[in-house]
C-alpha cells in the first residue's frame, strides 16, 4: 500500500516524461492524480499496518495532510488541462513531471515516521517545485526561483543539522541511535536537554523557513507571485502543510521530552509575528498574487499560534490544514484565471472582474470571504476554535493580537479585492482570448463547495480523524 502510494506518481512522472504531446500530458497527469486520491482514500478506510522497523506509519496527522494534499492535487491536475490549454506557447513537459515527482515526495512525507527520510522527502519537494516556479522563463521568474531555492535550501540544511543534533543526543544518551519518531519518543526522557533544545531551534527554523513563518517568509511573495496559479495553489495549499506536518512531528517529540513550553512559546511568538507581518504587507498590496502569498504567511502564522496554544486550539490547527489548503486552492486558481484574462496581476488594472468573468470573479470574491474566516466556510470553524480557545485559556493578549491582525488583514484584503471584482471593466483594459470554461472554473468551484460543506458540516469520520490527531498532540498530564 505504502509502496503504491509512492510509486504510482513516479510511474506517472515516467509516463508523462515519455509522452511527446503537450495536449495529452495534463490528462495523464489528472489520471494519475485520480489514482493517487483513490489509493489515499483506500488507505484512509483500511489503515495499513505499520511497516516492519516502523519506518512507515500512517497516523492521523499524516492522514489529514495526505488527504488535503491529494484532493488539492487532483483539483489542480484537472485545472491544468484547461489552464495549460491557454499556455500552449510553452511546453508543459517539466511542469507535469515535476508535479508528479513532487506528489510522490509529498506522499512520502506524510507516511514516514523516520525523521531523516521525511527530511529527504521534504527536500525533494523543494527541489522538484523549483522548475515549476520557473515556468514562465523570464527574468522575474528566474529571480523568484533563485530566492526560493536558496532560502529554502538553507532552511532545509538547518533542519538537517537539527536532525543531526537529535541523533547525536541519542548517541550521547547511550540509547539505540535512531531517528525513528517512535524510538525517539520512547527514550525522549533520557536525551540531554542541551542538544534537544538546540535541535528544536534548528528544526523550527528549518521547517519554519519551508513553511514561510515570518521573518523566514521572504521567498514567499516572490515565488507565489511569479509561479503559475496552480503551482501557487500547490505551494500554499500543499507544501506548506507538509512543512507543518514536519513541525507537528517535532512537536510530538517535544511533548515526549516534557520540555514543550519553550517550543510552544516560540511557535506563538513566530506565529503572531507572521500574522502582523501579513497584516502590514497586505495593506495597499499592488499585486494580487503577492497579496495571496502574504495571506499564506498569515495562515501559517495562525497554524503556528494554534499549535503553540495547545489544548482545543490543536483541533483548530489540524482542521485549518484542510480548510486553508482548499480555500487557497480556490483563491489561486481563480486568480490565475483573472490573471490570464486581464494579462496583468496589478490591482490597478484589474477592475470589474465580476462583469468580465462572472464565475472566476465570483469565486475569487467567495474565496476572499472564506479565507478571512467568515462563516459559513471552513476557515471560520478553525479560526473561531483557535480564537475562542485563546480566550478560554485566559490568554487575552494573544487573543487580542490575533484578532486585531485578523481584522487589519480583512480590511487590507477587502480594499484590494473588492475594487478588483466590482465596478465596470475599464475600457482601455487589454482583452485576451481567455474565457471561463468548465475546465478552468469547475475545479475551483468544486473546491469552494467542499470548503462550504466543511464549514457547515464535518462528517463523522473526518471528525474522529481530527480528534485522533489532536489526541496525538495532547499535552500529557
Amino acid at each position: 500500500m505504502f509502496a503504491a502510494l509512492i510509486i504510482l506518481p513516479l510511474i506517472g512522472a515516467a509516463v508523462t516524461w515519455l509522452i511527446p504531446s503537450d495536449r495529452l500530458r495534463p490528462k495523464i497527469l489528472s489520471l494519475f492524480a485520480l489514482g493517487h486520491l483513490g489509493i489515499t482514500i483506500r488507505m484512509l478506510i483500511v489503515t495499513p499496518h505499520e511497516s516492519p522497523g516502523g519506518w512507515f506509519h500512517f497516523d492521523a496527522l499524516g492522514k489529514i495532510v495526505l488527504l488535503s494534499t491529494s484532493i488539492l492535487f487532483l483539483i489542480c491536475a484537472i485545472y491544468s488541462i484547461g489552464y495549460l490549454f491557454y499556455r500552449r506557447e510553452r511546453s508543459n513537459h517539466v511542469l507535469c513531471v515535476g508535479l508528479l515527482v513532487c506528489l510522490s515526495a509529498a506522499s512520502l512525507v506524510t507516511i514516514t515516521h523516520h525523521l531523516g527520510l521525511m527530511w529527504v522527502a521534504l527536500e525533494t519537494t523543494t527541489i522538484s517545485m523549483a522548475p515549476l516556479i520557473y515556468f514562465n522563463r523570464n527574468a522575474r521568474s528566474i529571480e523568484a526561483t533563485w530566492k526560493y531555492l536558496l532560502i529554502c535550501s538553507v532552511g532545509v540544511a538547518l533542519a538537517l543539522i537539527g536532525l543531526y543534533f537529535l541523533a547525536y543526543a541519542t548517541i550521547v544518551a547511550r540509547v539505540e541511535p535512531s531517528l525513528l519518531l517512535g524510538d525517539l519518543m520512547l527514550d525522549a526522557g533520557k536525551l540531554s536537554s542541551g542538544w534537544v533544545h538546540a535541535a528544536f531551534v534548528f528544526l523550527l527554523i528549518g521547517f519554519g523557513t519551508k513553511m514561510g513563518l515570518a521573518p523566514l517568509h521572504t521567498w514567499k511573495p516572490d515565488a507565489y507571485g511569479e509561479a503559475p496559479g496552480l503551482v501557487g495553489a500547490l505551494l500554499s495549499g500543499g507544501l506548506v502543510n507538509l512543512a507543518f506536518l514536519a513541525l507537528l512531528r517535532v512537536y510530538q517529540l517535544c511533548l515526549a521530552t516534557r520540555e514543550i513550553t519553550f517550543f510552544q512559546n516560540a511557535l506563538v511568538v513566530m506565529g503572531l509575528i507572521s500574522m502582523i507581518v501579513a497584516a502590514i504587507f497586505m495593506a495597499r498590496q499592488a499585486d494580487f498574487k503577492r497579496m495571496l502569498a502574504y495571506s499564506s504567511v498569515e495562515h501559517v502564522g495562525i497554524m503556528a499560534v494554534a499549535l503553540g496554544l495547545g489544548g482545543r486550539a490543536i483541533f483548530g490547527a489540524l482542521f485549518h490544514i484542510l480548510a486553508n489548503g482548499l480555500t487557497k486552492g480556490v483563491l489561486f486558481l481563480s486568480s490565475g484565471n483573472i490573471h490570464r484574462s486581464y494579462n496583468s496581476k496589478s490591482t490597478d488594472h484589474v477592475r470589474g472582474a465580476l462583469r468580465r468573468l462572472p464565475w472566476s470573479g465570483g469565486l475569487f470574491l467567495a474565496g476572499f470571504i472564506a479565507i478571512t474566516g467568515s462563516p459559513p466556510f471552513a476557515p471560520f470553524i478553525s479560526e473561531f476554535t483557535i480564537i475562542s480557545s485563546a480566550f478560554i485559556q485566559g490568554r487575552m493578549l494573544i487573543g487580542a493580537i490575533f484578532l486585531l491582525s485578523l481584522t487589519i488583514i480583512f480590511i487590507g484584503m477587502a480594499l484590494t479585492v473588492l475594487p478588483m471584482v466590482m465596478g465596470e471593466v475599464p475600457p482601455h483594459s487589454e482583452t485576451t482570448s481567455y474565457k471561463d470554461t468548465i475546465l478552468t472554473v469547475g475545479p475551483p468551484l468544486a473546491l469552494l463547495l467542499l470548503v462550504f460543506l466543511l464549514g457547515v458540516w464535518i462528517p463523522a469520520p473526518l471528525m474522529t480523524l481530527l480528534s485522533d490527531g489532536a489526541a496525538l498532540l495532547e499535552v500529557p498530564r
Partner: protein
Amino acid sequence: MHSFLQGAFDPALVALSAALVIGCAGIPGLFLRKPGPGQIISTTAIILAALAGVPAALQLLFSHTATTYTLEWGLPFGSCELVIDPLSAFFLLPVFLVTAAGSLFAVGYWPAAGHRTTEPGLTFFYGLLASSMAILLMARNGVFFVMVWEVMALSAYFLLVTEHEREDVRRAGIVYLIATHTGTAALFVYFSLLAAQTGSFVLPVAGSLSALSPFAPVIALAAFVGFGAKAGIMPLHTWLPSAHANAPSHVSAVMSGVMLKMGLYGIFRTLTFFHDPPLLWGGVLTVCGISSALLGIIFAVAQRDLKRLLACSSIENIGIITTGLGVALLGVSSHNSVLMYLGMAGALLHILNHSFFKPLLFLGSGAIIHAAGTREMNLMGGLGKGMPRVGFLFLVGSVAICGIPPLNGFVSEFLLYLGFFSQLKTNSLIYLLFLAPLLALVGGLAMVAFTKLYGSVFLGTPRSPAAAYPHEAGMTMLAPMALFALLCLLVGLAPQLALRLVSPAIAAFFPQSAMAAVSAEYGAIMDKLSLAGVLLLTAAALAALLWRWRLGQARVTAAPTWGCGYQRGTARMQYGGTAFSELAVSVFDGIMRQRVERPTLTGLFPGKTRCSDTPTETLLERIIVPMFSLAGIIFGFLHRLQHGLMHIYMLYIFVTLFILMLWAN
C-alpha cells in the same frame, strides 16, 4: 389575540418553517432563464410565509413559554439549540412584516424585466437576509449565532452593492463591510468569553451570570461594540448613513426597519444573562442613547439626500430605543420596577413603531426616487400633486416619526417621558429627568427635519424638470405603505393593545407578578391617551365640516400664490431644503458642519456661478479616514522590509536563529 393556529399545530414549528421558506424563496429565480417568474415565486412564498409566521409569532408571544428545538449539526461546538421565547417572538414580528411588505414593493420597484442582471441576486439575498435574521432570533448556540449573524451581514452587503457600477455604492459597501466585520470580531471575543464563563457555547439562561465577576465588564463591552456597531449606536454609526442611502429602497427598509434591531436584540439578550447589573451599565447605555438621538437628528436636519436624511433619523430612533433600554437597566439596578417597566415598554414599543414608520418612509422614498429620478431633495418639489397617494402615506409616516399624536411614535416617547418623570418623587436617579428636555429637543429637531423633507419633496412647485411630471406608484408599491400607515394609526389610537403586545417580552427582564399591577396602571393611562386621540380626530373632523359648509356658502376662486408684490417668482426662488434647515443647522454649528463652496463674485455683472454646501460626516471624515491613511503611510514605509536583497533576507534567518538559540538556553 389567539391565531387560527390555536391547537392546530406547533406555532414555533410554523415560525421556523416560515423562516426557512423565506430563505429558499429566492433560489428558483437563480435558475430560471426567463426574468419575472422567479420574482413572482419568491414574493408569493415570502408573503405566504409571513402570513403564517406573524400569527405564529403572536401566539408564541402570548404563550409566555419557550419552545426549544435541537439542531443536529456536525460541528464540535456543543449542541445547537433553537429556542423561541417571547423576546424572540416579539422581534420576529417586524422581521416577517417588513420582509413581506418589502418583497411586494420590490415587484413594482425593481421589476425583473427591467433589471435582468441584478434582480435574481437581489431577490435571493433578500430572502437570505430575512431568514437569517429570523433564525438569528432563535439561535441559542454562540457559534451558530455568529454564523447566522455573518450570513445576515454578508447578504446585506451583497444587497447593498447591487448597483456596484456606481462609485459611491462601492464605497458605501466597503465602509459597511469593514464596520460589520469589526463588529463580528468583537462578537468573537464576546462568545468566547461567554464560553469561558459557562464552559460551553450554549448561551447562558437568563440571570445565570453574575455582573460582578471580573469578566462581566469585558463581556458587556464586547457585546456593546459588536451589537452596537450593527445597531448604529454612536459612535459606531459611521457606516449607517451611506449604506442605507445607497441600497435599493426596499432593502434600506429592511436594513433600517429590521436589521438594526438585530443589534438591539443582541444587547437585550446579553443583558438578560446577568443578574443585578451595576448602575454604570445603564448609565453608559443611557448616555450613548441620548447622544445618538441628539446627534443623529442634528445630522438628519442637515442632509440634502432624501435617503441619507432617513438613515440619520434611524440613528436618532435607535438612540431613543437605547435610551429607553438604559433607563430600564437603571431601573433593574436600582430595583425600581416602575422605571424598569416604563423604560422597557418604551424601548420595545419604539422598536415596533420604528419598524412600522421607517419602512413606510423608505418605501416611500423608493417611490419618490422612482418618480423624480434623483435623491437630491433640493431638486424636487410639488410631487404631492402628481402622486397624491404616496404623498398622503408619506405624510402619515413623517408625522409618526416625529412622535406626534395621534400616531404611534408618540406613544413610545410618551412612555419614556413618564419614565423620566417617574423619578421626581423618589430622589434616586433624579438626574434622569434632564433627559426629558433633551428628548423634547430631539422631537423638535425631528420636526424640522421632516417638515423639511416633506415640504421640499411633496409641496410647492417642482424645482427641476426631472421632478415636474411624477407618476403615481402602482398598487404593489402602495399596498405595503398603506399597511404600515394603518399600523401606525392603529398603535397610535389603541396604545393599550400595543402595551399588551410588549408586556410578554418585558417578562424576559422582570418578574411577572410585580408587573401585573404596573402594567394595569399604565394600561388605564393608555385608555385615556386613545380617548384623547379620538377626540383630536373628531375635533379635526368637526372643523373640517364647518369649513366645508362655509366653502359651500361662499365663492371659491383659484389664483397664483401671492408673491408679496414680487411678480416674477420662479420655482427656484422657493425655500429649498437646505435653506429651510440652514437656520437650525447654524444654531448647532460645530456639532454639524457644512462644507460650503461659495464663489467669489467679481465685477459689476458677475457671470453664472454656483454655490454648494454639503453636510460632512464628521467622525468618518475627520477621524477614521485620516487614521486609515496614516496607517497606510506607516505600512507603506514598513513595506521596505521586503526589499528584495537576498543577503539581508539571509540575515533575517540568521538573526532569528541566533535569538532563538539565546532564548532556548
